[in-house]
C-alpha cells in the first residue's frame, strides 16, 4: 500500500511542474500483433525456479509444425504444459506502449481551469484506484495426456543419448533441419542443455477447433537465466522479432550481455497519430533499432504488477499470473492495490546473427522504478473562444511545431508529410456581436 501511495504522490508532484500533462485517458495501445514473425516468451523466475511460456505466430499447416526446444535441464513429462493464449494476450495488452490524450481547457476561463485541475487530480486518484487488479476466472487450461500428449502438442523428450544424435534422428523422422544446426546443438549439449521436440497432434488440434497453436510452457530449475536464440536464427529469413516478458520478485530484468535501452517515452506527438498509432509504434521501433545499430534490447515496460497508470489493460489477476508460472503467489488470494510480489518487465528485441551472436543472458536488478512506453497527445481547446486568445493560439502553434519535430525524430517520417496531416490550430473567433441582433 505504501509503495502505491508513494508512487501516486510522485505523479502528483510531477503534475505541479507540468500541469495539463498528468490527467489523460488511455486511448490506444499497440500490441505485438503489429510485428510479423514475432515470438513471445514469458519467463517467470524466482531463485533458480523458472517457468517459460513460448508462443509463436506460426501460420502454416499444423502438420508441418515442429519445434526443437533447448532447455537447461532434463525435462520430465509433468514439466510441460500448454498455456492459455488469452492470458498472454492480456499480458501483451497490459504492457503495450500506450497513447494518452489530454484536452486543453478553455484558455478563457482561468478560474474554471484551476477547478478542472483539482477535479482532474481527484479523478486521477480515482482512476488509479480503479486500476487495481480484478479477479478473473480464467484458468490455466492445462490437459496432460499419458502418452506425452500435452494439449494439441505431441512432446518428444529426448534423452541425453538420443540428443547426441539429434540431427540424425530429426532427419530420419522427416524434419527439415537447417544447415549448421548440428554445430549449435553440439555446443548446447556440451553445456548440458537438453532438448525436446514439440509437434502438433493433428487429431487433438482438430478437436480443439482453434486455428492457432497455444503457447507451450516448461517448468525447470536452473541457475541459467538465459534464452537460447541461436538455434532459431539458423532458418531465419531476415531479422526476427522477439518479445520477452519476465515476471520476477525483486525488480526489473535486463540483458547482462547486451545493452538494454529504454524506448523513448513521455513525449508529445501530433494528435493525428491517434488514428495510426500502430504504424507510429512500428516506425518508431524501426528508427530506434536503426539508431542503436540493431545492437540493443529495448525496454518497453517495467512495472509492479499491482497497478498501472494509465492502464492499457487491467493488471493480470493472481490466477492468470499463476497460470504463467508465478508459483510464489498464494493461490486464491488476490492482492489488492499496493505493491504486488510480482514485477513485470517487457523487452523487445529485433535480432539477427550478425548483431546478436550470443544467446540472451538476463539478470534481475533491484530496480523497482516504473517505466512505460507512453505517448502524449494534447488536443487544443475545440470550443468557441470568448476572449482574445492570441497568446494561447500562439502557444498551441508552437507546441504543434515541436510535436511535428518530435514525431519526425522518433519515426524518421518526413516532416513535410507530417505537416500535411497536422490539424493546425485556428482559434474560433467569437461571433460578431451583430449576428445575434436580428436572428
Amino acid at each position, binding site marked *: 500500500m505504501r509503495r502505491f501511495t508513494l508512487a501516486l504522490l510522485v505523479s502528483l508532484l510531477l503534475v505541479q511542474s507540468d500541469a495539463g500533462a498528468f490527467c489523460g485517458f488511455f486511448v490506444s495501445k499497440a500490441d505485438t500483433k503489429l510485428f510479423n514473425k514475432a515470438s513471445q516468451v514469458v519467463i517467470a523466475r524466482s531463485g533458480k525456479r523458472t517457468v517459460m511460456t513460448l508462443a509463436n505466430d506460426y501460420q502454416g499447416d499444423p502438420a508441418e509444425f515442429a519445434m526443437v526446444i533447448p532447455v537447461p535441464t532434463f525435462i520430465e513429462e509433468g514439466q510441460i504444459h500448454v498455456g492459455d493464449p488469452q492470458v498472454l494476450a492480456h499480458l501483451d495488452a497490459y504492457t503495450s506502449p500506450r497513447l494518452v490524450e489530454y484536452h486543453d481547457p478553455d484558455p478563457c476561463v482561468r478560474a474554471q481551469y484551476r477547478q478542472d485541475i483539482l477535479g482532474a487530480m481527484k479523478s486521477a486518484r480515482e482512476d488509479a484506484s480503479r486500476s487495481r487488479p480484478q479477479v478473473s476466472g480464467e484458468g490455466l487450461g492445462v490437459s496432460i495426456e499419458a502418452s506425452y500428449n500435452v494439449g494439441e502438442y505431441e512432446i518428444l523428450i529426448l534423452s541425453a543419448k538420443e540428443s547426441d544424435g539429434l540431427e540424425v534422428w530429426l532427419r530420419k523422422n522427416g524434419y527439415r533441419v537447417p544447415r549448421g544446426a548440428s*554445430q549449435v546443438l553440439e*555446443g548446447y549439449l*556440451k553445456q548440458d542443455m537438453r532438448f525436446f521436440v514439440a509437434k502438433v497432434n493433428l487429431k487433438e488440434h482438430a478437436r480443439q477447433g482453434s486455428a492457432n497453436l497455444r503457447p507451450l510452457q516448461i517448468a525447470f530449475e536452473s541457475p541459467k537465466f538465459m534464452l537460447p536464440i541461436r538455434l532459431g536464427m539458423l532458418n531465419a529469413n531476415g531479422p526476427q522479432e522477439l518479445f520477452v516478458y519476465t515476471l520476477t520478485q525483486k525488480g526489473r530484468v*535486463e*540483458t*547482462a*550481455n*547486451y545493452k538494454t535501452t529504454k524506448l523513448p517515452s513521455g513525449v508529445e506527438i501530433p494528435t493525428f497519430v491517434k488514428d495510426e498509432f500502430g504504424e507510429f509504434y512500428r516506425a518508431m521501433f524501426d528508427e530506434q533499432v536503426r539508431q542503436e545499430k540493431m545492437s540493443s534490447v529495448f525496454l518497453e515496460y517495467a512495472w509492479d504488477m499491482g497497478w498501472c497508470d494509465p492502464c492499457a489493460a487491467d493488471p493480470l489477476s493472481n490466477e492468470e499470473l499463476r497460470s504463467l508460472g508465478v508459483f510464489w503467489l498464494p493461490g486464491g488470494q488476490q492482492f489488492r492495490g499496493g505493491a504486488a510480489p510480482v514485477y513485470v518487465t517487457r523487452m523487445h528485441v529485433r535480432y539477427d546473427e550478425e548483431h546478436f551472436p550470443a544467446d540472451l543472458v538476463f539478470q534481475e536488478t533491484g530496480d523497482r522504478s516504473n517505466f512505460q512506453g507512453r505517448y502524449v497527445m494534447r488536443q487544443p481547446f475545440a470550443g468557441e473562444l470568448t476572449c482574445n486568445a492570441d497568446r494561447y493560439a500562439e502557444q498551441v502553434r508552437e507546441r504543434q511545431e515541436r510535436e511535428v519535430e518530435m514525431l519526425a525524430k522518433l519515426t524518421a517520417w518526413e516532416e513535410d508529410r507530417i505537416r500535411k496531416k497536422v490539424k493546425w490550430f485556428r482559434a474560433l473567433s467569437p461571433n460578431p456581436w451583430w449576428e445575434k441582433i436580428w436572428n
Partner: protein
Amino acid sequence: MANRNDPRIFQIGVLSLLLGYGVLFLDFEVEALRAAATLVSALVTQYCGSRLTRQRFDPRSALISGLSLSLLMRTDQFWLAPAGAALAIASKFVLRIRGKHLFNPTCFALVALMGMSDRVWVSAGQWGSTALFAFAVAGLGFFVTQRAARSDVTWAFLGFYTSAVIGRSIWLGEPLGVPLHGLVSGALLIFAFFMISDPKTIPDARPARVLFAGLVAATALWIQFGLYHPNALLWALAACAPAVPLLDRIFPARRYQWRALQQNPKGENHATLHPSAAGVAAARAE
C-alpha cells in the same frame, strides 16, 4: 605534492571521460546529484580516515573510487550511492594486512552492497559491445596502466581470460562471433584496465601478479560459466583478494608507492621507488 605525472591524475581524467560518455551516450541513469554525493562521501570518508590514522589527506585515490562507483554502481535508492562510497573508502582503513589494504575499494563496495542489498546492481551489458568503444577504453587504459607500471597484471589477466573464453567456444563449436562479442565488452576492459590494475591491492612482485591474474581469470570463468552468476569479474576479484598477502609473502618485493614515473637514461619508464619516510607515510595513507 601532486605530481603532474602521477598516474592517478590520468586515471581521474579517463574515468571522468567515461562517466561523461556513459551519461550522454549510453543512457546511464546517473544523476549529477548522485554522482556528486558519491564523490563528496568518498572524500569525506578519506578525510576522516586520514585524520583518525594521523596521515596526510590525499583526495586522489578517493576521487578514483568515487568516480568508479558512479560509473559502475546502479541503485534506485539515492542514499546507497554515497553509502557505497563511504564503505569503499572505509575498507581501505579497516581491512588491512601488513600495512596494505586488502580489497580494491570500489570492488569491495560493489560486492558487499550486492551481497547485502537487493537494491544494488551492476549493469555490465550497458557498455555495449562495440569494437570502437572497446578500442578507446583499451587505449586509454593502456595509457594509465603504463604510467602506474602495473600493466603486466592487465595483460596477464586479458591473456588468460581471452584464451580461455575463445578456447571454450572452439570446444563448443561456436562461431568466433560468440566469444568476440563477450570480449569486446566495455565492462570487461574497464575491469581489466581500471580495477584489477590497482597497484595497491595486487601483489608487489611481477611473477606473483601474473599468478594473481591467472587466479582471478580462473575464478571469474568458473563463476560465469559454472555458476552462471552475473558480474563474475567483480566477485572473482573480491574472492581472490585474500590471496594477495599470501603471494606477497611467497614473492617478496618492494611495496608500491604512488610516485611519478621517470625515464631512465635508456628511455624506459620505471617507477621511482625511494623508500623515504615521507613516501612510506604517504603510501600508508592511500
